[in-house]
């Protein structure tokens, strides 16, 4: 009896310790990723719910989840097949050279990246419908480079995601991107290889596609907002961006937020929000006393009018930087930050969407959470997608032509700028309240903590696409899912010999 209880006294603490340590060790082991893998092997297939889902992946209706089948046996097409018409002549040719170098920002020397010797790189401009050909040469970026055309729905092979649509371009190598700029609007390009440090370090630039009919404003300017090591800049300069314009002239200010968090924009006078993420707002009205929230990666085109009675009008890009439009040397007092925000849910007037989102063929959920666990073998409190941690993330499966509805819910306690590659999505509702204004098309959506969004899109750009948080730190922490079209595969691998690290 005494011997037994003595033995028990020794064994019980050991058992209790094992009961704690063993599950932790198992979770740690399960979170590790191989030294080389395909995004096709990550996580689980999610066919969603709906009529389209019923005919997919074996003909079962309802919500299906499962591990990836042997994709070699079911795939017919590769991401590399999806290119612009090779016979079509180039309209706009651009040569870009990327370098890893010291940048001078606000008088300070900062380690970063350049495109053609500067950060931001050169602005690429094209007219709607023109074919753009970009020759990229990586001169000195040690980790390699891949260029993503943020917001342009390019063919999949041109999307510039290392390890998904191409291999990272190593030192001294080249890559050619070709795509038709079908969508007019304000876009930008940035590296999607080791994107968190490379974008923060300035490997980016502006891309503007003007409509065939031109724009109504006689003056336009691009303002790339970027923070270099804590220094707030517009177009790489810490001082205000001054735009000469005559009294009474209308000016289009194309603002791009290249940082990792949302930014407020407001003006001293009234303004019209002409476009969101490249898409024109239908019948935008004059706004005053309200700010526009521009999430990470998003763009907004504002129209301001130089006042007749004053020298200039200020467009604040946060409290820190501004675009000053008006007579040279003229300025205006810094307008106080408005407490109210412009709500895009009811801004502008309704217009046809071009598809019926009420009867989607597939419905998906993208629930964002945060919980303790391991990601890539590291303990922490990590972002979860539909309750699971990276790499157990969903692979949303669609079929070409599907009308896809997605419910996004953010219960993670922090804001997430959600970015779907290759598609524009329309906001149907926020927190259950239906959109009543102009169709609100986005490629980068600001999802605040506690918010839900119902969005929809047409699956009309086949391939394999990232669907991730554009706070690139969060993406690097595993907040990355993918959207794939049935029958697609990629020959590229994450990590591996090309050392592809898209985040």
């Amino acid at each position, binding site marked *: 009896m005494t011997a037994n209880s003595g033995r028990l006294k020794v064994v019980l603490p050991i058992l209790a310790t094992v009961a704690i340590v063993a599950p932790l060790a198992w979770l740690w082991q399960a979170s590790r990723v191989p030294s080389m893998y395909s995004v096709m092997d990550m996580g689980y297939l999610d066919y969603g719910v709906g009529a389209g889902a019923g005919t997919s992946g074996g003909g079962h209706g309802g919500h299906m989840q499962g591990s990836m089948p042997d994709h070699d046996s079911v795939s017919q097409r590769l991401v590399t097949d999806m290119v612009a018409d090779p016979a079509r002549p180039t309209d706009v040719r651009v040569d870009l050279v990327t370098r890893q170098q010291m940048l001078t920002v606000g008088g300070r020397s900062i380690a970063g990246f350049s495109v053609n010797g500067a950060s931001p790189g050169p602005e690429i401009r094209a007219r709607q419908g023109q074919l753009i050909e970009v020759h990229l040469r990586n001169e000195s970026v040690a980790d390699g480079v891949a260029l993503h055309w943020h917001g342009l729905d390019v063919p999949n092979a041109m999307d510039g995601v290392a390890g998904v649509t191409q291999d990272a371009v190593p030192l001294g190598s080249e890559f050619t991107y070709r795509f038709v700029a079908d969508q007019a609007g304000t876009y930008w390009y940035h590296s999607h290889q080791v994107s968190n440090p490379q974008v923060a370090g300035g490997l980016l630039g502006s891309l503007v596609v003007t409509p065939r009919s031109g724009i109504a404003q006689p003056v336009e300017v691009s303002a790339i907002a970027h*923070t270099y*090591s804590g220094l*707030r800049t517009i177009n790489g300069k810490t001082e205000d961006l001054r735009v000469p314009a005559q009294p009474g002239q209308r000016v289009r200010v194309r603002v791009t937020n290249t940082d990792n968090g949302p930014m407020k924009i407001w003006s001293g006078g009234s303004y019209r929000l002409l476009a969101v993420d490249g898409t024109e707002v239908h019948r935008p009205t004059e706004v005053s006393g309200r700010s526009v929230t521009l999430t990470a990666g998003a763009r907004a085109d504002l129209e301001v009018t130089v006042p007749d009675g004053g020298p200039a009008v200020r467009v604040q890009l946060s409290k820190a930087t501004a675009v000053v439009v008006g007579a040279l040397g003229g300025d205006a007092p810094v307008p106080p930050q408005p407490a109210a925000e412009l709500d895009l849910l009811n801004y502008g007037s309704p217009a046809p969407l071009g598809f019926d989102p009420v009867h989607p063929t597939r419905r998906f959920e993208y629930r964002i959470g945060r919980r303790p666990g391991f990601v890539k073998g590291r303990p922490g409190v990590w972002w979860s997608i539909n309750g699971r941690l990276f790499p157990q993330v969903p692979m949303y499966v669609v079929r070409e032509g599907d009308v896809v509805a997605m419910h996004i819910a953010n219960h993670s306690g922090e*804001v997430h700028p959600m970015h779907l590659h290759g598609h524009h999505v329309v906001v149907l509702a926020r927190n259950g309240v239906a959109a009543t204004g102009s169709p609100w098309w986005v490629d980068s959506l600001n999802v605040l*903590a506690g918010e839900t969004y119902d969005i929809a899109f047409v699956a009309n750009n086949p391939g394999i696409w990232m669907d991730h948080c554009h706070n690139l730190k969060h993406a690097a922490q595993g907040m990355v899912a993918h959207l794939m079209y049935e029958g697609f595969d990629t020959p590229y691998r994450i990590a591996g010999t090309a050392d592809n690290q898209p985040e």
Partner: protein
Amino acid sequence: MRTAYKALAYLVAAEVAVQAMVMVWAIAGLGKWVDGGGVFDKSVIESQATPFPEVAGIIVHGINGTFVVPGIALVLLIVSFFTKVRGAIKWAVLVFVLVVAQGQIGFLGHEFPLAGALHGLNALALFGVALYAARRLRAATAVRVEQPEARTATPV
């Protein structure tokens, strides 16, 4: 094991003090930065830069709260199984529960700032419990040291 238990429990209490100190240090630095015209918003927070030196306080608080303190509390819990002192496990469990709750309440504060007030209050509870866990074990150890002496005094 008893020494380890005591040391770990004291360490939890010390860490709570450190957590409080670095946050107030960071907030004071933030106040000074804003007072000088600095802008501290999401772009700056997420830019991996140190706009003012005291921002290190926020980073230390995050690393401590996410990794170090839960790690210490977990080791304390495991060590408590081997101390063979009545109540040691109970108090180690309580420390561990308060640490887990503290983390959850802290993250909840990102969405509901009022939870931040509870985070501050729970810190005091954790500090008190950790300190008590260490001190009661010291008392238990002292008693245990006295007992063998009493036994040797007993005639054979």
